[in-house]
């Protein structure tokens, strides 16, 4: 199997992560910090150490602001639904995933509105100008993706963050496609809330997400047992437990810790350079295929993923054909209809390939050969 669907979740996971998860299941199967016995305390120490590693990786102000969530979508929901109130206006981008757009749409019925700025997929200066033309005096929060999951386009996060800081606007970033692949410095980028899919670029197991906070603390949207202040019927106010009701995913958290060790050992820049090199190789080879449409013009300053279509074929058909050759890609709308409207692909979707640290040049060469074969056969049919 050639796995090129790493933007959905990375595979394979590093051996280090597999060992850490297994070790947690065997030796740390106790509710962290709840019970006071050694295994429970050791599990809590793993959580604490993981928070510290996460805070250091993203230059967050402290470990307590690192919240373990089930996924990036949950993190985004905690931020939006915990902070926004009737009359608030939000600004977001035209390349957002449904993780952002659906909660914002749901909040409309509570009198919370949103405005969208157009992202120019090849010109970040135009994107920033569009942002400035959209944001207003009544904007309470800006939330946007760091990197599009369809085109790999990077948004000018640092400039947007600086503007938000200057104007006192809350700034939340969906880093599902960038965390672990592109360096993120919350302080330098002015990010108040960083939402992370730990099972992607941090190579942790699925079912792991992070919300990293440096801004005002949101109201909770889930309350319950935290293992702290149990006599108090109100939700505790101390972080991080305030946002971690119910038993946490300790094996997953151990996996996050090992995943961060993995990317620190490899080096984020090295991982990104490797993946960008592969995407450029794919781009160069694919662009020679007659009847292909690639949805970007260059790949130096992008997240390492690539979308394309073949004339006369639906993206799902192409993915099915590749699957027959044991190549795993993602096709369709990628939960990002906004982006597809922008690209003009809302009816057909796109085929997306996304490498990881484990992908080789041979994987890309073989895949692009298969795509060329599929394209030539499709011409024979259509």
């Amino acid at each position, binding site marked *: 199997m050639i796995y090129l669907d790493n933007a959905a979740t990375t595979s394979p996971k590093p051996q280090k992560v597999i060992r850490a998860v297994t070790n947690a299941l065997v030796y740390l199967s106790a509710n*962290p910090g*709840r019970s006071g016995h050694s295994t429970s305390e050791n599990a*809590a*120490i793993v959580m*604490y150490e993981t928070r510290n590693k996460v805070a250091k990786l993203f230059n967050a102000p402290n470990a307590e602001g690192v919240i373990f969530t089930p996924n990036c979508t949950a993190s985004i929901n905690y931020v939006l639904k915990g902070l926004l109130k009737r009359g608030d206006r939000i600004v977001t981008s035209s390349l957002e995933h449904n993780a952002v757009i659906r909660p914002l749409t749901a909040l409309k019925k509570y009198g919370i509105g949103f405005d969208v700025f157009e992202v120019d997929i090849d010109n970040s200066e135009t994107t920033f100008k569009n942002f400035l033309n959209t944001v207003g005096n009544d904007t309470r929060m800006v939330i946007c993706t760091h990197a599009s999951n369809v085109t790999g386009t990077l948004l000018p996060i640092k400039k947007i963050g600086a503007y938000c800081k200057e104007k006192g606007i809350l700034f939340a970033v969906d880093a599902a496609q960038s965390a672990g692949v592109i360096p993120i410095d919350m302080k330098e980028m002015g990010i108040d809330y960083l939402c992370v899919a730990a099972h992607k670029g941090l190579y942790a197991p699925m079912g792991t997400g992070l919300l990293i906070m440096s801004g005002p603390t949101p109201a909770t949207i889930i309350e319950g047992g935290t293992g*702290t202040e149990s006599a108090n019927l109100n939700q505790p106010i*101390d972080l991080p*437990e305030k946002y971690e009701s119910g038993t946490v995913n300790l094996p997953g958290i151990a996996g996050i810790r090992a995943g961060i060790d993995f990317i620190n050992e490899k080096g984020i820049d090295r991982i990104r350079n490797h993946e960008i090199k592969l995407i450029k190789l794919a781009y160069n080879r694919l662009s020679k295929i007659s009847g292909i449409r690639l949805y970007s013009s260059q790949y130096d300053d992008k997240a390492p993923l690539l979308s394309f279509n073949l004339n006369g074929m639906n993206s799902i058909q192409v993915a099915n054909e590749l699957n027959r050759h044991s190549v795993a890609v993602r096709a369709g709308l990628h939960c990002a209809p906004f982006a597809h409207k922008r690209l003009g692909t809302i009816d057909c979707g796109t085929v997306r390939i996304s490498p990881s640290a484990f992908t080789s040049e041979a994987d890309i060469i073989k895949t692009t050969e298969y795509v060329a074969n599929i394209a030539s056969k499709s011409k024979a049919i259509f």
Partner: protein
Amino acid sequence: MGQHLIMVSSITQAIKGRDLLRSNGKKAYIEKTPSHLDTHGCGYSIIVYEQPENVISLLKNSGIRIIGTSDRI
């Protein structure tokens, strides 16, 4: 040398406080707050070997919320 409990709300705060004190050369460990002292429930304590007053400002300055102190009986 007697032991003293500095009670905090959670194991996260307790581990943070313990590590902070140790990095400042002070002896400290953590354990669950004894139930007769634990009015909030499920709390943790940092056990220190000096008067809590000596270290409380260090802990507070790092954002640790102190619930109370007690001598270990």
